[in-house]
């Protein structure tokens, strides 16, 4: 297992390296005004060149790459230019992450509880009214763009339930709508997968043998099917949790929550290149980390999987 872990981490670092390089090169295509700050149009050409030179943007690409890698390793993601001038990107991130993380964890918690239960009930009472309603819910959440239903929720629920629209750290009520909105998507996802896996398990041979043994349907559900259906889910859980750090762009902006999600939007709107760069790297790393953790979670859940031989595309 340890040997596998090392190999996996090595593989992932390699992939990450490629991603970072690609992102780096892509970002060099970004408009240069992003580096010059808000006074860009008032600067003379010489001033612009100086700034760019100081930032190392006129060096040959290879040199820039090299410096970039070095900086990443030391945790230096550069300094923000337009968003919070001269503040280190890493500092900015450190302030934003807690909010997104908090909401994200609550959202995942809700989604797990409701989504998994929903999926189980749907699988048990397949084709009943409840199943159809549940499916309807999943369809709506999956098909309609999130932006639309988040808006609808914010609009109509704040009015009818008299909940605050803007987020305020101290006001507990203002936490409710954003958290619930955030959990909707994941709830639908977990419910759908749970139902699908359980139905698959219900059709397998060992369930037929269990039935022949004389076990009641309820017993089979609880002791055999449930546990087995969870295994494929385990692979996706760590990734979902990590993504909550990324925050939800819509929700944070709709409810004015000072989290990570809104950061990317702001950075783009203000054309703050180093910030955009740093964020993209963070998100990609989170993704890869989620994958590794997911694999580990799978081994823990499924005793058949021996990781030493695993390899190749996921």
């Amino acid at each position, binding site marked *: 297992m340890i040997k596998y872990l090392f190999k996996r981490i090595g593989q992932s670092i390699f992939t990450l390296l490629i991603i970072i390089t690609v992102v780096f090169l892509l970002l060099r295509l970004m408009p240069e005004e992003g580096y010059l700050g808000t006074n860009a149009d008032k600067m003379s050409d010489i001033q612009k060149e100086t700034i760019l030179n100081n930032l190392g943007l006129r060096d040959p690409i290879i040199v820039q790459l090299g410096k970039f890698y070095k900086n990443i390793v030391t945790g230096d993601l550069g300094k923000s230019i337009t968003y919070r001038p001269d503040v280190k990107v890493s500092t900015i991130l450190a302030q934003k992450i807690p909010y997104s993380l908090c909401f994200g964890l609550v959202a995942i918690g809700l989604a797990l509880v409701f989504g998994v239960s929903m999926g189980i009930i749907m699988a048990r009472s397949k084709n009943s009214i409840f199943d159809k309603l549940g499916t309807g819910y999943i369809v709506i959440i999956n098909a309609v763009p999130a932006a639309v239903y988040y808006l609808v929720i914010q609009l109509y629920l704040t009015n009818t339930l008299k909940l605050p629209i803007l987020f305020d750290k101290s006001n507990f009520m203002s936490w409710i709508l954003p958290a619930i909105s955030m959990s909707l998507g994941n709830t639908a996802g977990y419910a759908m997968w749970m139902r699908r896996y359980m139905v698959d398990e219900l059709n397998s041979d060992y369930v037929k043998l269990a039935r022949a*043994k004389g076990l009641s349907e309820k017993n089979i559900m609880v002791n055999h099917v449930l546990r*087995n259906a969870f295994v494929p889910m385990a692979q996706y859980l760590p990734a979902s949790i990590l993504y909550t750090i990324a925050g939800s762009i819509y929700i944070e902006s709709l409810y004015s929550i000072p989290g990570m999600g809104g950061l990317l939007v702001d950075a783009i709107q203000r054309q703050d290149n180093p910030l955009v760069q740093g964020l993209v790297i963070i998100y990609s790393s989170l993704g890869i980390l989620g994958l590794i953790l997911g694999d580990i979670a799978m081994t823990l859940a499924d005793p*058949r999987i021996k990781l030493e031989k695993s390899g190749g595309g996921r």
Partner: protein
Amino acid sequence: MMSYLDVKINKEVVLCVNDLKVNFKLRGQVLNAIRGISLDLYKGESLAIVGESGSGKSVFTKTFMGLLESNGYIDSGSIMYSGKDLAKFKVAKDWRGIRGKEIAMVSQDPMTSLNPLKIIGKQVQEGIELHQNLKGAQAKKLAIKLLEDVGISDPEKRYYQYPHEFSGGMRQRVVIAIAIGCNPKILICDEPTTALDVTMQAQILDLLKNIQKEYNLTIIYITHDLGVVAKVADRVGVMYAGDIVEIGLADEIFYNAKHPYTWALLSSLPQLGIKGEDLYSIKGTPINLFKEIKGDAFAPRNPRALKIDFELTPPYFEVSKTHKAKTWLLDTRAPKVEYPKALKKLFDEWEGYRNEK
């Protein structure tokens, strides 16, 4: 193996099937899988049901436990067990006292029959706890004893292992242990050795024979392998196209078969082949069960069919008290028929055997 005298003495019937008809709904059409089978099962015997793939052997026994696929149903007929008609059971609750407790099944594929994520010890123990009123440590002790009985070495350690840590033969033994753990009266073995290699086959069959003696079971073997039948069966029923065309003691079927289909099956045994000549094979393919069958189902493939075989379904003709066959050849008006060449040797042995008695 029992002689026909033994069977006469132990004539207690445990399961009685009467004119059972089973259909399947398939893509809007109706498939007549079982076309009116009547059968008595005697206590303590080993009954083998032989037939080609698709003859309906598995479907027939699945009805005893209510394990038909969702598009299958019992059209008519009855299955009497302990005074109850199993054919009338509709809901899972009805089956609660029967499955496992009275009738248990060992199925064909040990690879997929076991829950891959549960230790096998627990899977054996489940049946014990459910049907034998033991819990916890006592149940575990019995589970370990069962594992030992079925021939798994080091049972205390292997109790904690997962199915993927066992070989095919070992897994089949575990499945047998699970079935025994339920303490049934009737054990249905659906092609228990088909997925195993020949050496393992012999071992499993011996194991089943021993278990039958020790636990006083009645066993139904479903198989297409006559070799298996020869090893274990007291009585043999030959199935074709959803009907039992011939049934009798094992000796009677092997050495004195009367139905052309049984002849064809026996002739197909490679051991009866004559060196230098082509091996025998039955012409044609099994009949289409979607249509109503007129007359004898085997008639189109039977080179020795009578005209009446295409018109009227033959009833059972008695050959002896324990042996009957559904063929018009046994009618007094039927012409005398030559046995197939390869079987002659076999049947001459029967003459000798009968004369001994």
